[in-house]
Each structure stands twice: as structure tokens, then as C-alpha cells.
């Protein structure tokens, strides 16, 4: 059970890491192109980050209920 949990969390972390990187990439490019929009971009970026992070947290909390 422990191995499966570790593997599942690892895979989830992999995907979420890629997603967070993509969001950071997009936000940074946008900020570099349009420095005056930094405030709005930051807000949107943080919200997107929160939603992506939630996927990982859900995985962490749901996985132990699936593996029995």
C-alpha cells in the first residue's frame, strides 16, 4: 500500500509540477511583454496556481481512500 501511495503522489506531483511551470511561463512572458498589466496578470496567475495545486491536494487526499 505504501509503495502505491508513494507512486501515485509522485505521478500527481509530476503532472502538477508541469502545470505550475506552464502557468509561471505564461505569466512571466505576459509580464515581460506588458509590464503595465502585472497586477492583473498576478491575480489571474495566483488563481490558476491555486486551482492546479488543488488537483494535487485532491490526489493526496483521495488516493488513500482508493487503495485499501
Amino acid at each position, binding site marked *: 500500500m505504501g509503495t502505491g*501511495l508513494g507512486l501515485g503522489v509522485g505521478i500527481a506531483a509530476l503532472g502538477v509540477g508541469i502545470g505550475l511551470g506552464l502557468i509561471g511561463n505564461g505569466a512571466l512572458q505576459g509580464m515581460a511583454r506588458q509590464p503595465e498589466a502585472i*497586477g*492583473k496578470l498576478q*491575480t489571474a496567475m*495566483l*488563481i490558476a*496556481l*491555486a486551482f492546479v*495545486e*488543488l488537483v*494535487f*491536494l*485532491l490526489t*493526496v*487526499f483521495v488516493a*488513500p*481512500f482508493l*487503495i*485499501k
Partner: protein
Amino acid sequence: MDAIFLNGPSIFAEADAMSAKEPSIWGLAAYIALVLVILFVLMSYAKKGLNVRVFKNPITSLFEQLYLFIENMCVGSIGQHGRKYIPMMMTFWMMIFVGNVVALLFPFAPTADLSFNLGMALIAVCYVQYEGVKANGLLGHLKHFTGPKLSGAMVAISVLIFTIEIISELMKNVSLSLRLYGNIHGGHLAVEAMNNLGNKIYVPLGVVVLLLIKLLTCLVQALIFTMLTCVYLSLVTHHGEDHAEGDHGQAATAH
């Protein structure tokens, strides 16, 4: 927490067994009381410099900056009528932030317990519904869930959309509370693991390396909780207010 996850095979029970510092319900209450005491002392101290024309009291100006920040956030994401939600958002922000930061100095934080977060998320979601009903009326608020206006046989789709919206509305409070709990509790576990790593060489690695990152997490989590509540509020209260403003504008130009 135990009451909620009673049936699960439990990683929670294991975690409880591993970390003996998880307090009971009264311990949690004591930590919440600690947070409230910190907040009340700070705010009562800040109130002293309130009647001066320029705030000389540093605590007062600190809270002024915080107020400006929250006001900026509310007005930015909700619009001009977002100003009346500032007190609630400010309360959420301060409660969560101080609740998070307490963990840097004491062995536990109230926000690292799911029940406290769930309570706060319930308050937030219910507040959003209340404000939505207040802004659009009960029928308008319910109509808001049905999506775009469809006619004829397409009403079936509206029913589907309504169901899905209700479910997502209910899941909002799960997502709000789980996000906060997972981040703070996960941060604690990470610091603990780093400290265990450094045990052999007698260096508390977690304290050295991770506490600063944890401070950032504390700030960002408080910000995200508040900002998401703002976004939910803007989704719910948007239409009615905008139409009203539009009508006023037209009336003004007509005159």
C-alpha cells in the same frame, strides 16, 4: 477531523499517531484563542493612532497598508460595489494569515486542522450565497445558476447546467478548505521531514531552509482564500449591480 473521515482507511490515523503534537479539540480552541488575542491586541494598539491626521503609529500605518491592499483586491476583482465586502475579506485575510504564521513560532497552527478550515470555508460560501440573494433576489440568484437563456426543448440543458452548478457550488467549500489545510499541513510535514534529515548532524535543516518558504506559503494561502472568495462574490453579485448601474447611466444621459 476524525468525525469527518470516520470510515476511511486512514492515513489520517497514521499521521495522528506519527505526530503526537496534534492537539485535541480544546488544544485547537486554545490556538484559535491565541490567534484572536494576537489580533485583538494588535488592533487595539493600532486604534490609538487613529484620530491623528497622519498616522504616526507604525501599527496603524501597517493596518492602513493592509486595508489598502484588500481594498485594491476587492475593487479590482468585484468592481466599484466591491467596497462593501472589505470588512469580511479583511477578517478572513487576517485570521488566516495570523493563523498560519502562528505555526512558525508555536508547534501547531489552527489552519493546519481541517475542521477549522472547513468552518471558515462554510462561512465564506454561505456569505457568498447570502450576498447573492441580497443583490439579485432569491429568484434572480437561482436563475443565475441556470446559465444562458434557452428556449423550447433546450430547457433540459438548463436543468443539467443547474445541477452541475449546484454541485460545483457545494464543492467550492471543499476546495477552499482542502487547499488551505493541505498547504499548511503539508508544509508542516515537509519541515518535520527536513528536520529528521538533519538530525544526524544536529542541524535543524527545516528551520533553516524551509521556514522562509513557509512564510511565503502563509502569505499566498491567505491571499488565495480571500481572492477566491472575492471572485465567487463577483460571479454572484455581478449581473444585477451592473444592470442597475447601466440603467442609471442611461437615465443620466437621457436627462
